[in-house]
């Protein structure tokens, strides 16, 4: 079984995020991590391979240190990696990103695409379903369980107050969320192997894409500016012992804020 995993490098959740003075961009402390949900996707791919054989390929679109995501993938046990690091690919909206990734996926036959539910930088949650549509495949979003048998996949995803069990024929796309598995910590020997690995790259041209179709140029959504979130006035500590503080809190909620 050939499994493709889409994984993205995002700023570490603890990185400081600031807004450039003129609002045209963000200034983010250069601390990176693999997108949390993509680690679940990767882990699931490795488990499926361990069970059914085949190979796992990790694909990422990104520049700079984005190769680290691929090396993490290899360290965890992925067989292959592919990097889309031409600047023409960058700064795209969900659609432009999904277009490039879907072409990269199509370069070789595959049975399964696994990706994360959401990238925690842009918080879009679009690429997985878009890739599925671009490849004209079914997808199941936010899965917490996945079983493969007889060319079919049975996946579970939580729905409000319960869960849905759905069945799709392969190939298909799945987006992973918390609860699917616990991602493994790569072995030291795995990390050493990954650090030495040559990472193949692919250009827009090789994917049959013009630079007009991808990245910022190919985006249908434009970022006009960044704004700071609403700032809170700062905490007001309610004084007194437990009883007094509770009474005052209730008074504030009822009389001043009228939330009750």
């Amino acid at each position, binding site marked *: 079984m050939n499994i493709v995993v889409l994984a993205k490098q995002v700023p570490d959740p603890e990185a400081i995020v600031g807004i450039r003075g003129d609002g045209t961009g963000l200034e983010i402390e250069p601390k990176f991590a693999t997108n949390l949900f993509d680690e679940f996707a990767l882990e699931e791919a490795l488990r499926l391979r361990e069970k059914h054989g085949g190979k796992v390929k990790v694909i990422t679109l990104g520049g700079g240190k984005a190769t680290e995501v691929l090396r993490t993938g290899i360290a965890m046990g992925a067989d292959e990696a592919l990097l889309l690091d031409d600047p023409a690919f960058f700064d795209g909206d969900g659609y432009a990103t999904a277009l490039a990734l879907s072409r990269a996926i199509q370069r070789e036959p595959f049975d399964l695409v696994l990706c994360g539910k959401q990238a*925690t930088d842009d*918080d879009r949650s679009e690429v997985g379903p878009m890739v599925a549509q671009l490849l004209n495949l*079914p*997808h199941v979003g936010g899965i917490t369980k996945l079983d493969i048998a007889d060319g079919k996949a049975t996946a579970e995803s*939580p729905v409000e107050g319960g869960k849905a069990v759905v069945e*799709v024929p392969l190939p298909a796309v799945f987006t992973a*969320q918390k609860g699917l598995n616990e991602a493994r910590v790569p072995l030291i020997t795995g990390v050493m192997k990954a650090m030495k690995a040559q990472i193949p790259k692919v250009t827009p041209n090789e994917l049959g894409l013009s630079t007009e179709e991808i990245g910022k140029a190919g985006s249908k959504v434009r*970022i006009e500016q960044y704004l*700071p979130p609403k700032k809170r006035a700062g905490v007001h500590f309610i004084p007194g012992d*437990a009883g007094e503080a509770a009474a005052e809190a209730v008074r504030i909620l009822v009389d001043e804020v009228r939330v009750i």
Partner: protein
Amino acid sequence: MERLLIFVETKGERPRKVSMELLSEGQKLRAQGYAVEAVVMGKASAALKEEVLPCVDRLVNLTDAVLQNYTAEGFALALANHARSVDPKLILAGATQVGRDFLPRVAVLLGAGIASDVTGIRWKEEPIKVIRPVHGGRALSEVSFANYPAIVTTRPNSFPMEPSGGAPGEFVEKELGISSEVRTKVVRVEEVTKGKVDVTEADVIVTGGRGLKGPENFALLEELATLLGGVVGATRSVVDAKWRDQGDQVGKSGKTVSPKLYIAVGLSGAIHHIMGMDTSKMIVAINKDSNANIFNYADYGIVGDLFEVLPAMTEDIKKRLGK
């Protein structure tokens, strides 16, 4: 005349709260010259019609059998198909699990731009600009679209719900004949807790963290939440310890919520948690540690033992409500 198309998501027989928020927004826009259409999948109940029709010029019910149950493929095909005949300027839907799951497919099918999980729309500007939080709410991005139609999913509790009576619009049933194209099969839907309000849509959330000490103590939170007409949320530590369901987890790897009132009890306020609740309108924190990070994000703080403060608050509210 410019048209809006609102996807109405249902919960049981009724429209979801976030759909009503959008319809309420739509109603305001009707006054400004937009034609507002709604679309609902499956079988529209009488109750639903009663709630939706006064807000719209037309409600279209797509009735294909395959739309009885949610599948991303089916809903996307149906909505895209229908939208082509409406030619709206914007397609609006709630940024719920369902909305966020299938509208990106609609965007591809229509070649439309999409902005997900939006918290504000600047209707008066041209092109229209929408605001969406990024990086877990640490910045807002203002975006516009290269062309129309464009798609916007909105975060629950971000738009005021103030439907006012209006002349009921037209109701139309329509079958698209797409059933054979859908490959996804819903095997079963298991509902464990039926009818419970989801944390993402609750007006009031009382969230407990590891400070609660054990699952049994969440009864304290349940009681307070019920009095306030709200629900109980949980931190990841609590979910990982299996004290609460994954569905209740608030934060980066859980759900993003924006209730009117968020009461954080016995939780430290790790950045991962903050990312899921920072857009709450009012935050009250109870923690015995005055240095807890949650206080950096709270409007009101009580430094104290939750096992003393919570029961006292509950008693006091009961008194006020005359219970």
